[in-house]
């Protein structure tokens, strides 16, 4: 049955139309379907739909089609779930995408298939979806980049290191906050500044060579002095990297700059400390050897003096030699103090009364035209140290101040003593973190003299450095050694306008009653002495010296020999006098062994070369005294008698 002629309009609509009867035979096949399928109406009409398209036999299709043929509701086959119902090839070989609606035409008892070709819409939708997805992806990517860019910008702006971006000539285009903080420049003030010609330039150097390196694509790293807005400069660690565009053309420089002025100061301090330590070692070694020579010289001179009592002229010369030798010994003592190897007689005493007494002494040691003013904070400032050494150190500073005020009409020296103040002493505390721990007294000595030239300021504590024609160059070296020996800190401030201030920070101790050494008079009588020294130049004159004082002396040339001699008759000895540093066995070890046999035996350590630890050890031993070579014969005799009497 062909009913197409009854519906001519159906050949003129852009929709595929087919109808099947209750037996599923095609009864209508419009022109659009002929065109789409290349199957003619004549070919299709009368043919079973399921015969023509066997794939429609599948239940998903057949059951629903039959539902319509039974008068049921219309059925839809969507393109997304089925793509097509009637295969219609496109020129490119793909099949048309179809939306098929099947309705029951009750009047004709036909199922009418309406087939819409959605291929073009499908293509456009896919294209739109793809474009949308691409756009969304692009948008997401762009947002991500924007976020990264913002994060990067914030990170650079808030970084601890300064970041600068310039054009290839060095004209600044961007600086972060750290750079502005470091240099004091405002952001707008830098726009026209060429960094390499101004901020990096110094009278001595230009940046031309470095720019050549950057031009070749290499990164430049180094240290550079950076000029700040207020004219001062600081040292910075600089990394400059060239930035190239896609065409490999140099477009910018990025400069990372870190302020390392503190690090440089630390390095300088470390270098200076190393130099000081080397000097200390050198000076200590020389002083030790020289001391031994002096000890021999003093002893020999003393004996020679006794032998020439009846030769007045010679005796007089010998006394002069003795006096010169003592002066030489004083110089060596200062050297040892600087080298922190001298003997230190520590006592506890109040720094307050010590400084007051010192101020009186200072008044007598400077010319009358120099005014001395004092400013002392109330308090005792208990201190443990060697008052003689400390007094000598302060006198050395006063002498320097006096020298600085030589040509002044209104010369003034101020001596002050205060407790360390975290606010007013903040500069010193930052420089010396040790001041944060423990209690310190701040002793300062200021003069309004001509100041110390900056060029030599670093060297003033070096031994043998002096600007005075007759200066030994040991005064301030001794001061430095003394203060360090007392675990103190010394700082100097000086300018031509304001003069010089020495700041001494001395550790105070918990308050106790300061002790004063008891003075006991010596009672002379001959005693038996075991004298130990490895240096004959010291040993022999000392023995003669002691014998001349009515003592009985037995010699030993090292620690081992001394122990043997001592052990042969331990009860025979009244006292042992021993050198500290000797080959085979040192004096300390030898005395320990002897004390095992005679715990009460008094020991005098005579040395010119003591290590601090050894000194500390000797302090812990009872009835033990440490003396420096060369020693004064009378003082040595008194000391011997005092120790022997104390034992008894």
């Amino acid at each position, binding site marked *: 049955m062909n009913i197409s002629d009854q519906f001519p309009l159906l050949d003129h609509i852009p929709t595929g139309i087919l109808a099947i009867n209750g037996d599923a035979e095609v009864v209508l096949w419009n022109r659009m379907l002929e065109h789409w399928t290349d199957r003619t109406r004549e070919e299709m009409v009368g043919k079973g739909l399921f015969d023509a398209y066997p794939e429609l036999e599948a239940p998903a299709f057949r059951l629903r089609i039959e539902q319509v043929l039974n008068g049921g509701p219309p*059925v*839809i086959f969507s393109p997304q779930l089925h793509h097509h119902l009637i295969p219609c090839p496109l020129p490119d070989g793909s099949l048309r995408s179809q939306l098929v609606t099947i309705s029951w035409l009750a009047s004709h008892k036909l199922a009418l298939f309406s087939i819409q070709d959605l291929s073009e819409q499908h293509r456009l939708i896919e294209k739109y979806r793809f474009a949308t997805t691409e756009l969304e992806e692009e948008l997401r990517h762009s947002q991500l980049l924007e976020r990264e860019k913002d994060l990067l910008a914030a990170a650079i702006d808030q970084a601890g290191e300064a970041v600068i971006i310039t054009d290839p000539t060095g004209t600044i285009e961007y600086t972060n906050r750290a750079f502005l903080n470091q240099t004091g420049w405002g952001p707008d003030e830098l726009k026209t500044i060429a960094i390499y010609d101004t901020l990096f330039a110094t009278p001595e150097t230009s940046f031309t060579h470095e720019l050549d390196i950057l031009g070749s694509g290499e990164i430049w790293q180094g240290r550079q002095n950076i000029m700040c807005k207020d004219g001062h400069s600081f040292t910075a660690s600089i990394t400059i990297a060239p930035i190239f565009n896609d065409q490999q053309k140099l477009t910018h420089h990025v400069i990372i700059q870190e302020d390392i002025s503190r690090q440089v100061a630390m390095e300088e301090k470390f270098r200076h400390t190393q130099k000081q330590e080397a000097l200390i070692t050198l000076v200590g070694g020389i002083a030790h050897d020289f001391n031994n020579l002096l000890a021999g010289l003093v002893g020999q001179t003393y004996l020679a003096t006794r032998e020439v009592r009846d030769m007045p002229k010679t005796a007089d010369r010998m006394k002069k030699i003795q006096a010169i030798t003592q002066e030489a010994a004083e110089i060596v003592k200062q050297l040892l103090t600087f080298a922190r190897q001298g003997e230190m007689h520590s006592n506890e005493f109040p720094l307050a009364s010590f400084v007051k007494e010192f101020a009186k002494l200072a008044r007598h040691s400077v010319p009358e035209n120099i005014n001395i003013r004092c400013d002392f904070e109330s308090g005792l400032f208990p201190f443990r140290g060697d008052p003689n050494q400390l007094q000598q150190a302060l006198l050395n500073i006063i002498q320097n101040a006096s020298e600085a005020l030589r040509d002044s009409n209104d010369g003034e020296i101020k001596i002050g003593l205060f407790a360390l103040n975290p606010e007013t002493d903040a500069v010193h505390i930052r420089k010396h973190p040790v001041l944060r721990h423990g209690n310190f007294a701040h002793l300062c000595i200021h003069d309004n003299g001509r100041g110390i030239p900056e060029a030599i300021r670093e060297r003033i504590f070096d031994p043998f450095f002096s600007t005075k024609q007759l200066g030994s160059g040991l005064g301030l070296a001794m001061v430095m050694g003394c203060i360090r020996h007392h675990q103190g800190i010394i700082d100097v401030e000086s300018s031509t306008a304001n003069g010089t201030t020495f700041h001494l920070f001395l550790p105070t101790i918990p308050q106790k009653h300061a002790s004063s050494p008891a003075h006991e008079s010596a009672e002379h009588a001959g005693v038996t002495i075991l004298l130990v020294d490895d240096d004959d130049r010291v040993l022999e004159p000392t023995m003669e010296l002691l014998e001349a004082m009515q003592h009985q002396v037995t010699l030993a040339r090292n620690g081992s020999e001394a122990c043997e001699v001592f052990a042969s008759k331990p009860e025979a000895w009244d006292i042992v006098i021993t050198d500290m540093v000797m080959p085979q066995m040192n004096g300390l070890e030898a005395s320990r062994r002897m004390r095992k046999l005679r715990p009460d035996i008094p020991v005098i350590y005579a040395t010119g070369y003591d290590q601090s630890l050894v000194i500390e050890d000797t302090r812990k031993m009872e009835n033990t005294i440490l003396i420096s070579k060369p020693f004064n014969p009378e003082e040595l005799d008194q000391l011997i008698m005092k120790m022997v009497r104390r034992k008894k």
Partner: protein
Amino acid sequence: MTSAAHSSSTRQLNVLQKDAITELMNIGVGHAASTLHTLIGHKIELVVPEVSLITLDDYHQLQPYEADELLSTIWMGFRGGFEGNTSLIFPTDSANTLITALTGEMDDSPELDELRAGTLAEVGNILLNGVMGSIANMLNAALSYTVPEYMECSLLNIFRKNHTGNDTIMLARTTFAINELKVEGNILLFFKVASFEQLLISIDRELAI
């Protein structure tokens, strides 16, 4: 499901009639759910249908939807022994999820394009045919149908489409859910009052109430 019927006309349905219509709806929806289960492979949860007489003013009682909430709707009219229309409504995100489950194609856009709308129309067609086919068969009614139509509109507009003025219509409603996909929808059956008596006669006759 919250009752949508507070109209005085409710009293026109006796308990037996109401139970019969509920049962009719239940069988139809059950058939539709079975078809949908075959299609997507997930378990379909059904709530017992509710039958009520409503007017246009009662639309806002159809919770949980907001009055102006955009819903995906498949609508199909029918006439013959009795007249009315049937609708399947989904929130658009549920509609999207359902299409994604069926086609595997992701699309997060709030509105459905023509292809995805066509898919939902077919799904709605299957469900509504299941309901209407069952009811027509059980009542032995010869009905003619409009071609199913996909729309995105609010609940108010769905009601307006079914009401003339403020007349009373009978609404049979059931909710189904695909919990695994977090998809929820409603099947609504509106019967016009003019055909209401005819429906009851058919029920009386065919189901021997």
